[in-house]
C-alpha cells in the first residue's frame, strides 16, 4: 500500500464515513440548536446589560462590570465544567447540553455587552443633545437615535466574537453533549479510524462558513454614508 493510499484509507475511508454519516448529521443538528440558543440568549443578555449600564446607576454598573470581567477572564471550558460538575452539589443537575449553553451564553453576554457598550459610548454627545432638545426622553433617544447608530458600528466586532464563541460548542464534548465533535470522536473510538473526524471538520465548515460569509455581508450592508 502506497503512502497516499494509506493516507486516504486513514482520513477519507468511504466505508467508515458512510457508516457514521447519520451520527455526524445528528451531531450537526445538536450543534445548530446549541449555537442558535447561545447566539440569541447571549446577544440579548449582552444588549440588555449594556442598556442597563447606560442608565449610569453606579452600584449597578460596578456589578455589571464585575460580572462581565469575570466571564471574559474565565476560559469557557472552565465554566462548563464548573456548571456541570459543580452545580449538582447544590441540588441542581443541569445536563451537558444546558451546561454548555449556559456557559457559552454567559461568555457571549460578557463580550457582547462590552461591544454594545463601546458602540453606545462612541455616539457623539451632540446626538443626545439634539434629540433631547426636541423633547425626546432618555429612553426614546437611546432607542431611536443612539442604538441604531451604535449597532451598525458594533456589527464587525460582534460577528467576529459571536463566531469565535459559538465555535466553542465543540467544548460540549467534555460533558457528553452529542454535538458534532462528540459524535465524531466516539465514532473514531468505535471504528479505530479517524475518518469520522474528517466528516466532523466538514460539518463544522458547512455550519460556520456561511456564518462567516453572512457576517461579512452584514458588515457591508450596514455601512452608511456619513
Amino acid at each position: 500500500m502506497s503512502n497516499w493510499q494509506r493516507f486516504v484509507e486513514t482520513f477519507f475511508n468511504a466505508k467508515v464515513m458512510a457508516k457514521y454519516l447519520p451520527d455526524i448529521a445528528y451531531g450537526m443538528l445538536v450543534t445548530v440548536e446549541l449555537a442558535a440558543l447561545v447566539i440569541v440568549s447571549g446577544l440579548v443578555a449582552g444588549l440588555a446589560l449594556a442598556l442597563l449600564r447606560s442608565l449610569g446607576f453606579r452600584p449597578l454598573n460596578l456589578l455589571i462590570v464585575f460580572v462581565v470581567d469575570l466571564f471574559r477572564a474565565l476560559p469557557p471550558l472552565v465554566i462548563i465544567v464548573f456548571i456541570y460538575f459543580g452545580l449538582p452539589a447544590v441540588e441542581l443537575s443541569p445536563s451537558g447540553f444546558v451546561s454548555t449553553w449556559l456557559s457559552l451564553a454567559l461568555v457571549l453576554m460578557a463580550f457582547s455587552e462590552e461591544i454594545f457598550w463601546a458602540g453606545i459610548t462612541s455616539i457623539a454627545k451632540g446626538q443626545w443633545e439634539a434629540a433631547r432638545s426636541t423633547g425626546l426622553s432618555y429612553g426614546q433617544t437611546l432607542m431611536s437615535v443612539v442604538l441604531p447608530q451604535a449597532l451598525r458600528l458594533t456589527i464587525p466586532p460582534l460577528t467576529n466574537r459571536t463566531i469565535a464563541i459559538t465555535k466553542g460548542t465543540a467544548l460540549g464534548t467534555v460533558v457528553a453533549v452529542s454535538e458534532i465533535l462528540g459524535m465524531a470522536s466516539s465514532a473514531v473510538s468505535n471504528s479505530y479510524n479517524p475518518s469520522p473526524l474528517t466528516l466532523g471538520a466538514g460539518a463544522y465548515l458547512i455550519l460556520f462558513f456561511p456564518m462567516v460569509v453572512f457576517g461579512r455581508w452584514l458588515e457591508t450592508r450596514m455601512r452608511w454614508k456619513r
Partner: protein
Amino acid sequence: MRLIVEARGIHKHFGALHVLKGVDLVVHERELVFVIGPSGSGKSTLLRCLNRLEAPSAGSVIVDGVDLLDPRTDLNRARQRIGMVFQSFNLYPHMTALGNVTLALRKVAGKSRAEADELGRAALARVGLADRAGHTPGELSGGQQQRVAIARAIALEPRVMLFDEPTSALDPELVGSVLGVMRDLRESGMAMVVVSHEMGFARNAADRVVFMDQGSIVEEGPPAAIFERPVQERTRAFIGQIQRH
C-alpha cells in the same frame, strides 16, 4: 410685549470654574437677541441653560410661562417649545432629512406618520429643501444640513429658537443660505436668541445685542448703539478687535 424667555440670576459652576456669574436675560415676543463675546465668555453655556441642556447652579429660567428648574416640570414637553440649533448640526446620520425632522413630531408630539410627514415636508419647504427630503445628512452640504436642523426645530412650532454658533462650522460660501433662513424666521415673528460671530447679521437683523465677557453681561442695547457707541471699555475693545478683520 409678552416675555417668552425670562432668565434671572443664572450662575453656572463647572467644578471650580465659575462660568456664569449671575446673568439676567429676557427675550420678548418677536424679538431677536444677539449674544456676542469672546470665546469662554459663557455665551454658549447661557444658551444651553435656556433649554436646560445645562442645569444652572442657581437662578431661575422661565420659558413661555414654564419654570424649567421646577422639578415638577415635564422637561420633555417644555423643550418642544424651545427649538435649538447647534454649531455642528447634529443631524441623525442614519435617517433621511425628513426622518430627522419627523422623529420628534411622531415620538413627542404624538403625530401619526402621515401627519408628521406632512408637517415635516412643510418645514423642509420653509428652509428651501423640499426636494432633499429623501437625502441622508451625508448627501447634503453643510449649509443644507444646518437648514435641515433648523427645520427639525421649527417643525415642532417652538415659541423661541436658540442658535448656538449656527454658521461657525460652515464654509464661507454656505453661510448666506443659513442666515437667509434665519432672516425669514425672524420676519415670521419667531423669538430668537442667537450666539454667533456674524456681526453683519447682528447689525441688520437683531433687535438687541448683548455683550458678554467672563460670565457676565457687560452691556446690551440696540445694534447701532453697541457697535457704534459702546459705553463700556471692554465692549469697545471687543468691537474694535472684531472690526479690524
